């Protein structure tokens, strides 16, 4: 077992009590040259809670994820992990601190079997060789524990449906000791039923004591599982509130850009009467 795997195993058994602040963003901003991608965003991610980050395309959601995931570095503000000032220099570093990201493309290799995908980059070995039997068994068990019942872990992951692949990716992150799970629009490409399945896994991960960051542009997906909501608009935070202070309608309004939408409605109906 490598040092990293040992660290992962240790983390798995000692998730902090629910409510503990795992990640805190304080006035985080990111500039790419003279382009301001994100400015003054603050929020917290607690163990056993889901922090939802909502925003339209180009609102800064990707930049937000990349900073917490270690893919990019913030240029303003403070990122605290376990209360400690942190700037990640690589995704690996974030991963080693227990922050795992499930990207929209899921980071899976379509042509490779499910179990090889599950352990990719953290393979179990016996001597110099892969311990395939143990990896297959663990994959099956971990998926079953998340309530995912897959036919055959030896099939290429590309043969699974979008929802199933999403669930495998989440189960993988949870298995490898994620304390904070960042989900990048996990429901964006899914149908209604498949989205429901994924939302259930998000709740399952939360109930296991993980802090979840759920990125989405759909307030109807966010509200049922979310404990805290951050709404981004043009790189700025327009809302950071716990569920108790934010009724569903207000969130939907913020997200839809209430005023803009009614303007659009007006414009469209005007077009119609004009023609």
């Amino acid at each position, binding site marked *: 077992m490598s040092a990293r795997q040992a660290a992962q195993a240790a983390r798995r058994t000692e998730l902090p009590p629910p409510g503990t602040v795992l990640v805190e963003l304080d006035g985080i901003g990111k500039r790419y040259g003279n382009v301001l991608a994100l400015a003054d965003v603050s929020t917290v991610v607690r163990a056993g809670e889901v922090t939802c980050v909502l925003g339209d395309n180009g609102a800064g959601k990707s930049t937000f994820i990349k900073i917490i995931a270690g893919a990019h570095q913030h240029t303003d503000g403070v990122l605290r992990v376990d209360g400690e000032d942190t700037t990640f220099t690589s995704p690996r570093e974030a991963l080693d601190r227990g922050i795992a990201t499930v990207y929209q493309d899921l980071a899976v290799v*379509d*042509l490779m079997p499910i179990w090889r995908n599950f352990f990719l*980059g953290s*393979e179990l070995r016996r001597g110099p060789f*892969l311990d395939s039997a143990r990896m297959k068994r663990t994959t099956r068990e971990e998926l079953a524990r998340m309530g995912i019942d897959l*036919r055959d872990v*030896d099939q*290429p992951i590309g043969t699974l449906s979008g929802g199933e692949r999403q669930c495998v990716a989440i189960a993988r992150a949870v298995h490898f000791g994620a304390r904070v799970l960042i989900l990048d629009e996990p429901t964006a490409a899914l149908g209604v039923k498949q989205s429901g399945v994924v939302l259930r896994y998000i709740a399952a991960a939360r109930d296991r004591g993980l802090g979840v960051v759920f990125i989405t542009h759909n307030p109807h997906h966010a509200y049922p599982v979310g404990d805290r909501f951050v709404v981004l608009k043009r790189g700025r935070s327009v809302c950071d509130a716990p569920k108790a202070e934010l009724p569903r309608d207000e969130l939907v309004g913020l997200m839809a850009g209430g005023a803009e939408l009614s303007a659009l409605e007006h414009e469209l109906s005007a077009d119609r009467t004009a023609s």
Partner: protein
Amino acid sequence: MATLTTAAPAPPADERLASTSPLRKALTRPELGAAVGAIAVLAFFLVFAPSFRTGAGVANVLDAASLLGIMAVGVALLMIGGEFDLSAGVQTATSALFATLVAYQLTLNAWAGVGLALVLSLLIGALNGVLLLRTRLPSFIVTLGTFFVLQGLNLAVTKLVTGTVLATGVSGLDGWGSVRAVFASSLSLGGVSVRISVLWWLLLVVVATVVLTRTRAGNWIFAVGGARSAARQVGVPVARVKIGLFMAVSLCGWLVGMITMARSGSVQANLGIGLEFEYIIAAVIGGCLLTGGYGSAVGAALGALIFGMTKQGIPAAQWDNDWYKLFLGVMLLGATVLNDLVRRRVSGDRE
């Protein structure tokens, strides 16, 4: 092929899973096309080329396949890892020329030449890899560059040093006897004389197969070729894997170079030019996808065997050698179409 007959261990029955017939399972193996092709080509020449039916004929075919096969193994690994190496052919010449020139000019032990050539080959491989990663250009372009650079160097330096395009003289050096024994001897197997290069080839196929299917490095090779960014995201050291693969191709090139040198004691400066495509074709016939992420070393070996059979079979059947090129083209097209079918089947028909 073994996979045709061995059934997978029975998983608990699941009503969503139609029972997979062994045939259907075999259809998703990368080697299938090459295995069928090899059998067909063999049957064909057994009928038309009488010399195929003798032990010596088989040994000839294996010999012709072995040098190509050694390179095809390395090139197949690289292609599974998602890259090409057009400099693979001339690299065989570079290592052989370097070993010959350095050992002879400095009157070193022949093994010193062999060892120094190994170092040079690995450096060239690493350079290919580093250039690829630094420039972010496609490997087709980067290795086309090194192909011309090495081709030019091979000819120019050989002419500069020897005044001709032939490097010779190693056969008089200390250690030459053992170099010949390691790289160019023949073994008698059941009364048939088999070149040692065939054993080197088989050894490489076994090593490459074990690495690909049973080790972490193999997992990473499939991953960087199949989905590079996904591999990076889960912590696979993409740069290291790619550089390692280019070095593996160069290692194969060194081995072929040493075998060529040891067989005749001299090296033509234009050795290997044009062979780079044969390696790629052998790998593709063996089931490697041009897009990476899929393939096998056994398949590449079968691809090389098809080449060997054809190379020997066409003259043995007393046909004009020009038919060889036509055959190459047909095989390549057929294999690519088949591979694409396999890929779509494996990846779930989603495009």
